[in-house]
């Protein structure tokens, strides 16, 4: 049995598909590749592959991570080439690394996600630019920011700040504001980048429409004693 850790993208063209759709797309690409995939035992065997973290509808990504198990040994470069051939154009294989020996699952170790949000400017004037900078400054300075998560399972109040790994940064350009921040992924939960933006608009009068933001995940990391590693650098 061979296990690979794979860094892949979720391109602009498929920004609007869900995590489940994305997983199904990868599964079909793996099947088309005719790679010797490992399957689980049982009456409904399923292909052995898993993701580090789910990605929301509307969010593209420069670096997602998955683990794929093969039933036969294979060279990482060959695996990478064969998978790349069958992936749709919107998904690219960036790097592949073989997982040697027993290691904790990706999902258990990834604990940080970095996002980039492009928010189009409305008025493109100084008032708007100042408002943006002020909102980010105040958000960074706040000790606690409450946000009510509404889902089919009910309402839940969370403190957004507990998930912010560091201060958010912003660059206001001619046409758009570009925000970057890092969010912690914890066993107790996390917050979505779109929710952070909603809080900025609602609680900090960030001038702009949260629904107009174009969100991209720049990377997923394993943070260990203040140092960030790519999941491919672990183990």
């Amino acid at each position, binding site marked *: 049995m061979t296990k690979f850790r794979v860094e892949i993208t979720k391109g602009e063209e498929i920004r*609007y598909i869900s995590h489940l*759709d994305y997983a199904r797309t990868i599964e*079909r690409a793996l*099947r088309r590749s005719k790679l010797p995939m490992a399957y689980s035992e049982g009456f409904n065997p399923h292909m052995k592959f898993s993701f580090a973290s789910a990605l929301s509808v509307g969010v593209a990504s420069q670096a997602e991570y998955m683990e794929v198990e093969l039933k036969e040994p294979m060279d990482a470069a060959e695996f990478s080439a064969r998978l790349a051939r069958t992936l749709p154009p919107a998904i690219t294989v960036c790097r592949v690394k073989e997982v040697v020996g027993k290691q904790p699952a990706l999902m258990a170790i990834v604990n940080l996600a970095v996002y980039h949000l492009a928010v189009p400017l409305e008025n493109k004037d100084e008032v708007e630019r100042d408002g943006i900078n002020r909102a980010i400054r105040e958000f960074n300075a706040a000790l606690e920011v409450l946000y009510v998560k509404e889902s089919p399972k009910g309402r839940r109040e969370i403190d957004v700040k507990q998930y912010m790994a560091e201060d958010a940064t912003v660059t206001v350009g001619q046409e758009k504001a570009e925000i970057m921040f890092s969010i912690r992924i914890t066993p107790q939960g996390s917050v979505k980048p779109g929710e952070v933006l909603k809080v900025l608009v609602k609680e900090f009068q960030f001038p702009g429409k949260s629904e107009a933001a174009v969100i991209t995940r720049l990377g997923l990391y394993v943070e260990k004693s203040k140092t960030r590693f790519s999941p491919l650098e672990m183990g």
Partner: protein
Amino acid sequence: MVKLEASWLDQVTKPARYTGNELNMVKKDLLAVETTFALAFPDVYEVGRSNLGLKILYHILNCRADIAAEWVFAPWTDMESIMRENHVPLYTIENMQPVADFDVLGFTLQYEMSYSNILNMLDLAGIPLLAKDRDETHPLVIAGGPCAFNAEPLADFIDFFVLGEAEESILEIADTVISWKKSGRQGGKSGVLAKVAAIGGVYVPSFYTVAYHEDGTIANITPNHPAAKPMVTKRIVEDLDKAPYPTKPIVPYLDVIHDRVVLELFRGCSRGCRFCQAGIIYRPVRERKPETLLKLAKEIVDNTGYDEISLTSLSSADYSCLHQLVGSLMNQFKSQGISVSLPSLRIDSFSIQLAQEVQQVRKSGLTFAPEAGTQRLRDVINKGVTEQNLEDAVSAAFESGWSTVKLYFMIGLPTETDEDVKGIADLAYKVLNLYKTIKGRRGAKVTVSVASFVPKPHTAFQWFGQNAPGELARKQQLLKSLLRDRSISYNWHDVEISYLEGVFSRGDRRLGAVLLEAWRKGAKFDSWSEHFKYDVWMEAFRQTGVDPEFYNLRERQKNEVLPWAHISSGVDRQFLWKEYQTAVAEGFTADCRHGQCSDCGVCPTLGVEVIDWEGKA
């Protein structure tokens, strides 16, 4: 080109419905081809993406370097509001090109309750709804599919209909459009209509005049144009085995209705169920060879990565080489974790054995369609299934480990009495008890699904007056009162939708005004119960002065000129009338597939024959 804003897509459910870019999509330079087709499914993406007919046409058209075909679906109501608010016209999802820029806009007519969506899509595209208001600067708006066999309610809106299987006629149409464009659109729109009218299977409704009697029935339907044929006969593919098949179908990202390899074993079904329109309009039976099917399956699996192959046909268990085919498919694909599924099962133990074979990989419930609750009524509809058949099939299923059975029935069939309705409940209990007898304990789950019968054109029951909604509702309640066991779940259809379907399925041109009025008042997505607005439709009938019950509840006379009198499926009207009389007399008509010709007329009319590979393959 249409550009969608992030802020719009952020607000709609399932935005991937509108963004395209699926695997195997064909994206051509629209300026570099001779003609362009927009293939439209008048319902939401997840329903339309599964349609085999349009997939075939997309494949055939795009195989030609000089033609481009692109897809378009009805946007869901949330997206529609955003599009209207922001003046975004209806667009195809390949090149995001406004539909109005295409040469041909083709709709598939799968069910009557999608008609209001056609009007809505034309409007969203900025195309005048009425054919008479459009000229050569607009796309030719065409339609095909099963409902084209009585397309009269759409006659005001559609330039021409394409009857039957369009594998060949679609290219004849494309070539006609290409040469018309090259001639500088000679004769304008009527020029091209006169040319396409000569193509077999093409029906140009404006080339016919309908005259009415005082009582509202039709006096005659006569051609008013030299190019119009007195009778338009459907087209079929003579040799299905050689017909093109999409082996590189689009693989959707979203979870659509039929998200698997669709392998079409054969066309047609000659079992002769008298309520069934498909059984008439797809005649005669023509099979693909098992080796062709195996080859197609391999190619499609390689090109899509699907993990399930669905053996699709009107009655797949009737495929003459089914055992051989299933065996070779299992052999080929089992090790790759790919399963084979049969969407419909015949009611006999052969089918159970087969279901058992294919379900070695995956297991689900079994579905049977006895259609009627008593032997008498099953004889009326020529279902050809006995109580013993059902008992044998269900017993075999329970013995092989299944415990979930779904049974499909209809109410409102001709000659039906309350005894027949009670018979449905009796059958459901019989199935439950069989399980207890075989397994020695309770534990079976039976679902009884009951549709309301809607008489369809080109069937033996095309003359029959549909049950009134009150009567259907009474029968539904009667059945409900009889199905009291917790192991039986019971579901039924909205009688108001069946009522309207009954009007449009056998309607004539005068319904065009009703459709237009209902759409103006907001009718759309009528097949979705959350959107169906019965009051709006009733108001539209009142305002236009059209009596719906003239169309659905009235028993027609033998010699009445039916609105589809000039449209031929190849089956003789005399045969259908004889079948109606035999039905009432509870008589049996045999399946013609194995030598016993029932003289329906389709083979001599179309100059074709039944193709069954048993013993030949």
